[in-house]
């Protein structure tokens, strides 16, 4: 604008528009455009993310699952280790609304159990005379809420003297559904630790390798090579054997996830390194160096934001592999054990083929695992698409 005016001065008679200059008259922005240009990076991400419908729904599903983490005690009708010795290997009790044509609200029929010695199996027959309506906001099994104080309030409970096994019971008569709800607590959280460690290490090693280059870079490259040529399996086995026996199972599992995180970083480090190699050549990075910024500040303040999206996406995408990793560890008997409950522990009981054939409901834990892993994957996809500044 200024340039044009200067030229005009020389050729045309001097003229000054008395009205105050308002750039909006020449570059009128629609309200949408205005919002877009003034929005922060995070806002833009959010808008793009919202377009990815499945990712949004996955996010909602995950939030619902994570609600089980703080409130497992209240949501679950039983505690995970409550046994009912009259109902061993009981099949799921179907939910009914109408009894003999009359509406009673949600209820289950009571079950009679006996051992059939010819096939060596517990046999359950629903007893239509026993209508057991589900109670809501009720008092049931005692529990220690967050291990702090005793309570007995539940979202829903079985009828007084009745049972409520919506997902069946296991070999000791423990309710599967309650197990699943409590299991979410460990399965959904402990893996996060491993992911966090892997990200921190990946950023650190990838960062210094990519930024400084030279000897440091090739040393880290060798380190990555070594890490990648050691298969995970023997490391799991050896390290879990080396963890002290006196640790509680939860600590052992924590230790293992930390180990998993320690082993998982090379992939991310490589990505970070190559990204940094190209980013440090950018003008703004050079400018920061010339202005005397220390390496830590240059990396942390100027270069890292350039690939936050990548980090977020790879974090979301490696959480499901941690969840699956837990089931694999349990399969090898290296993971958690009863009395701690996780989905891996529950699924471990389904590794015998007899379960698949005789007691199919013991495979129930696979359903939340599939849902959560899928949701994390879609969420990760959505986040990555949204965080990519070039699209």
């Amino acid at each position, binding site marked *: 604008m200024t340039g044009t005016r200067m030229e005009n001065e020389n050729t045309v008679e001097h003229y000054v528009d008395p009205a105050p200059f308002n750039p909006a008259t020449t570059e009128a922005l629609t309200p949408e455009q205005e919002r877009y240009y003034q929005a922060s990076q995070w806002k833009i991400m959010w808008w793009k993310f919202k377009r990815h419908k499945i990712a949004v729904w996955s996010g909602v599903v995950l939030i619902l699952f994570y609600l089980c983490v703080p409130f497992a005690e209240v949501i679950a009708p039983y505690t995970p280790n409550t046994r009912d010795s009259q109902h061993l290997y009981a099949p799921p009790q179907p939910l009914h609304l109408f009894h003999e044509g009359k509406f009673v609200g949600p209820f289950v029929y009571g079950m009679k159990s006996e051992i059939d010695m010819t096939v060596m199996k517990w046999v359950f027959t629903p007893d239509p005379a026993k209508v057991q309506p589900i109670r809501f906001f009720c008092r049931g099994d005692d529990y220690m809420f967050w291990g702090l104080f005793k309570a007995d309030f539940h979202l829903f409970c079985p009828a007084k003297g009745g049972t409520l096994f919506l997902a069946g019971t296991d070999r000791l008569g423990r309710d599967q559904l309650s197990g699943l709800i409590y299991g979410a607590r460990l399965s959904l959280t402990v893996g996060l630790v491993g992911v966090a460690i892997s990200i921190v290490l990946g950023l650190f090693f990838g960062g210094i390798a990519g930024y400084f280059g030279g000897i440091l870079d090739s040393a880290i490259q060798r380190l990555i090579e*070594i890490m990648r*040529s*050691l298969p995970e399996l023997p490391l799991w086995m050896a390290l879990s*054997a080396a963890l002290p026996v006196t640790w509680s199972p939860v600590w052992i599992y924590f230790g293992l996830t930390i180990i998993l995180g320690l082993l998982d970083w090379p992939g991310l480090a490589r990505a970070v390194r190559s990204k940094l190699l190209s980013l440090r050549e950018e003008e703004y990075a050079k400018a920061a160096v010339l202005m005397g910024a220390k390496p830590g500040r240059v990396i942390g303040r100027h270069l890292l934001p350039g690939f936050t999206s990548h980090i977020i996406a790879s974090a979301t995408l490696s959480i499901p592999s941690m969840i699956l990793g837990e089931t694999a560890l349990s*399969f090898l008997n290296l993971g958690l054990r009863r009395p701690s409950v996780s989905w891996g522990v529950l699924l471990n009981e389904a590794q015998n083929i007899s379960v698949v054939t005789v007691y199919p409901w013991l495979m129930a834990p696979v359903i939340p695992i599939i849902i959560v892993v899928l949701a994390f994957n879609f969420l990760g*996809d959505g986040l*990555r698409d949204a965080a990519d500044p070039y699209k």
Partner: protein
Amino acid sequence: MIYYIVRRIVTMIPTLFVISFLIFFIIELPAGDYISNQVAALKSSGESASIAKLEFMRKEFALDRPFFERYLIWVGLWSGPHGFDGLLQGNWGWSFEFAKPVEEVIGPTLPLTVILNFATILFVYVVSFPIGIYSATRQYSWGDYGFTFLGYIGLATPNFLLGLIMLYLFNIWFGLSVGGLMAPEYIDQPWSVAKGLSVLAHLIVPTVVIGTSGTAGMIRRLRANLLDELHKQYVTTGRAKGLKEGRLLVKYPLRMALNPFIADIGNLIPSLVSGSVIVSVVLNLPTVGPVLLSALQSQDQYLAGFILLFVAVLTLMGMLVSDLLLAVLDPRIRLGGRAAS
């Protein structure tokens, strides 16, 4: 270029030493050794008369020496009970469990392992390519969601459970023997058409089970790579020139999108041998994986050490091959490499 390759190979030597030491350290981490565990097992079942022979083995394999000496004897840098006789001298070690030299234990399992993992890789490529291309060209369509969903289901189901269920169903529906890579009657037979067919039939379940967990990742990467390319200027130019969509896609973007996968072939080499241990155990496959697992569990240390080292060497070679392939494929790297050398 040749200088580059030679330099890479030379740097591999110290790396290998570090790896061999780490491997030895890891397999020796658990308490006790194979012999002492066997002795304890014999004692607890009251069979102490058979211990003498095990004590003999302990001396024979220098298990009574300190850790570093044992490591050096294994590698062949220290004089053991029988002089210098380790990896460097071509003695790969002895398996206590199988009572055979390790190469005789691993040898027969290798061909089947390679067949299985090759079939799996093929399966992954065959399934994920069409889906990846379809999803990239029709981003955010129902087809994109649907196929991606299918691809992810495989990833989301714990492999061992999927394996068990499929084993059971195949046994019920097709009468296929449970587990293994062939019907039991063929195991000790020479190769024949019938044996080959039996192997093919038994390959289906493991290939699908192992493969499904890989397809999701592959679809995702292919889709992302292809989307990047499709957004580039030259595609728009091509389209503006009136190029047909199909030809437009195949001519450059697809080829560019495939580059990383071809470079990846090097990384697949180690997984040809060591891939999918847990599934192999569940499905009772006669591959290297279960041998490794049981060797680790029973502390059959030289067998485990040999397999791990073998895989490590393959990994290092695979990385080298990857880098070379990438250089050959991508003119930018190739030219840059030449300028550097």
